[in-house]
């Protein structure tokens, strides 16, 4: 589980870095170059929600096993 989560984290930072290279800073949105901070925070929040879902999923699996 940890392996998958860390690889996802790694991949998401890769995506952000890749976007940084290709994105041209013409638009108002990226003028200060700090939109990446917001993206990072949104992704972190999403990953924590996913972690919560994963734990819920495993708990349910445990209940299913107990019932058998």
């Amino acid at each position: 589980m940890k392996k998958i989560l860390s690889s996802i984290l790694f991949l998401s930072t890769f995506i952000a870095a890749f976007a940084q290279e290709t994105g041209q800073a013409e638009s108002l949105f990226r003028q200060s170059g700090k939109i990446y901070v917001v993206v990072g925070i949104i992704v972190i929040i999403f990953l924590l929600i996913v972690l919560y879902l994963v734990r819920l999923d495993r708990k349910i699996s445990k209940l299913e096993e107990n019932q058998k």
Partner: protein
Amino acid sequence: MKSIPNIWYKVLTVLIVCYVLAYGLLINLPSDVGNLDETIRNLFYHVPMWFGMMLILLAAWINSIMYLVRPSVKRNIYASELTNTGILMGLCGLFTGMFWAYNTWGKAWTNDPKLNGVAAGMAMYAGYWLLQKSVSDPERAARLSAVYNVFVFPLFIALIYVMPKLSQFSIHPGSGESVNFKAYNKTNNMELVFYPAVIGWTLLFVWISEIRSRFQLIKYKKNNEENTVKHIIS
């Protein structure tokens, strides 16, 4: 690893949604989007809620039909839980849409065929939810709500998709004579984020409904065991 069933689509969900969250904010926009400006990025968040809702409600509809063809607890639970998450997705789309409308059109609710159709449709699905809660016999409730769902889904699609397309005037994109997002897409790569967004968000809500369905199944089995035990004792 064994304890999470169907892990492949869950990993896919996380990857796709991370990609959508990051790229949706970072992608270069076309310059001809009018007064939408940067809010065109909502295409990756608001619109997939509706697409996903339609897909999930379609799955619920199919499960309801399968229940009526061959009644089983599993089909009933799948249908009702998929409908519940479908309604949740619809509410996500509704509230994000109201916020976006307030900032673009100046009003949270315009008198538009698309919006009014959605209001009526959500009320119909509230009826589905109420129907399930109000019938005390579980088998009766399952059968009634399956029949109701079979009727409601085509009506819902007609209200939110077909009617706005037929209407003379609509301010909402993708209906009537109004602008279409396809008009912008040709000059840029917004499709590269939009289609994954639809897939990713839908899968996320499928995951949620899977967890809820499994929980309901456990609950059902437990109740069943208790009932049989009581029966034996008495």
